[in-house]
Structures are given as C-alpha cells and as structure tokens.
C-alpha cells in the first residue's frame, strides 16, 4: 500500500469515526432501556443461531444469521463504535472504559470457550459417554463463539454506560 493510499484510508477511518461519534439519528435507540433491549435481542439472536445450527436447519439458520448481523450493525452504531474504533479515534475516557469492558468480555468469552472445550472433551471420551458430537454440533459452538467474540464488547458498552 502506497503512502497516499495509507493516508487516504486513515482519513476515511477518521471521517467515519467522527460521524459515528457525532451521530444523533439513532439517539432514540440510545436510552438505557432500549440499549438493554437491543443487547437482549442480540443475545437471543446468537442463541437462536446456535440452536438452529445444532438442529441443522439451514434455511432458518441463514435467516437468523442475517438477523444477527443486522442487530450487530445496529448495536455497533448505537454505541458509536466505541468498542471497535482504533485508539487514535477515541478519547482517553472511552479508551479507559472500553479496556474495562474488554476485560469483562475476555472473562466471559474464555469461560464460554472453556465450557465448550470441557463439554467436547467429555463427549468425545467414549469410555465416559456414548454420545459423539457431529459436525452440526461443532457448527453451533462455532457460531456461538464467533458471535460473542464480535458482539460482546459492544453489548457490554451498551449495557453498562450511563450515556452514549
């Protein structure tokens, strides 16, 4: 990438960040009650995606993934990209706040991954259990971990911040 391309890309990110930080069009979604409702809806969509993957319902799974992506995009805009923007484009308070949210997100996500690994380990140990995981079960775990790793920081910001 040339220097000019790099500068143009940086300017575009800076412009996008500025627009997100000053956005007022989604203020109706930024009340604490609506933010928490959006977090719960996103969690429900993630759970739905995993259940549908587990049940191997392909068409319904695609619909649920589309819904989940839509909710994630809305959630990210509602929190003004605070969980994702590069450090250079947010102020020191936001950096401090999101570091704390990332710490919680890491704890929750690592807990979920540990539980899934433990369940997988126990399930594949034929001497303890006869049930064996299939591809669809691995898909369900994959979607759950992928969804949480993408959305959890924004969900925690939306849930816990007094003002956005």
């Amino acid at each position, binding site marked *: 990438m040339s220097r000019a391309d790099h500068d143009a890309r940086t300017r575009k990110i800076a412009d996008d960040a500025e627009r997100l930080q000053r956005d007022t069009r989604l203020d109706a979604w930024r009340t604490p009650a609506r933010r928490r409702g959006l977090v719960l809806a996103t969690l429900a969509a993630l759970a739905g995606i995993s259940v549908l993957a587990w049940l191997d319902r392909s068409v319904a799974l695609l619909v649920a993934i589309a819904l989940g992506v839509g909710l994630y995009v809305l959630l990210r805009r509602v929190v003004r990209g605070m969980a994702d923007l590069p450090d250079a484009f947010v*102020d020191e308070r936001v950096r401090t706040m999101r570091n704390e949210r990332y710490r919680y997100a890491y704890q929750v996500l690592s807990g979920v991954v540990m539980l899934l690994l433990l369940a997988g380990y126990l399930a594949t140990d034929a001497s303890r259990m006869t049930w064996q995981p299939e591809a669809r079960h691995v898909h369900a775990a994959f979607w759950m971990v992928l969804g949480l790793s993408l959305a959890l920081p924004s969900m925690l910001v939306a849930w816990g911040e007094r003002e956005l």
Partner: protein
Amino acid sequence: MHNRLVVLRAERALSRQDLADALGVHYQTVGYLERGEYNPTLALALRISAFFELPVEAIFSLQPFTPMSAALYAGRDEPGGSR
C-alpha cells in the same frame, strides 16, 4: 477528585460541545468530567488548564472546593454588606 469545570464553562458561556471541541474529546466526556465520574489524565488536565488559562490546582483538587458564595462573601457581616 473535585473540579470547577461547571463554573468555568458557565462563566465563559461555553456549551459542552464547544469545550469538547477545544479539548479534542467527546462532548459526553466533558459531562463525565464535570460530574466527577471520570478523572482526567495529567495530559488532559494540563490541556484543560491551558484552555482556561488557570493553574491546574485552581481547576482540580483532591479536597472539595469552597463554594463560590462562601468565598465571595466570607468576612461580610450581613448579606449585601461590605467588608
């Protein structure tokens, strides 16, 4: 930590957005600072100090500030009277 940001901003008739733009922070960060819910780094405290052209200890303190009315009228015998 305590601060006099609300008073200083009101004296200069600045909105939160005006102050935020001058300091290069999000306007809600000004609200968090004013309410004492966020303590600035030394770099931001010095930028605020430079913006208001006041020493940093005139804006931030670990002890509560004396209310302005008490500071202005300290030593007066009666309301509206002279020293």
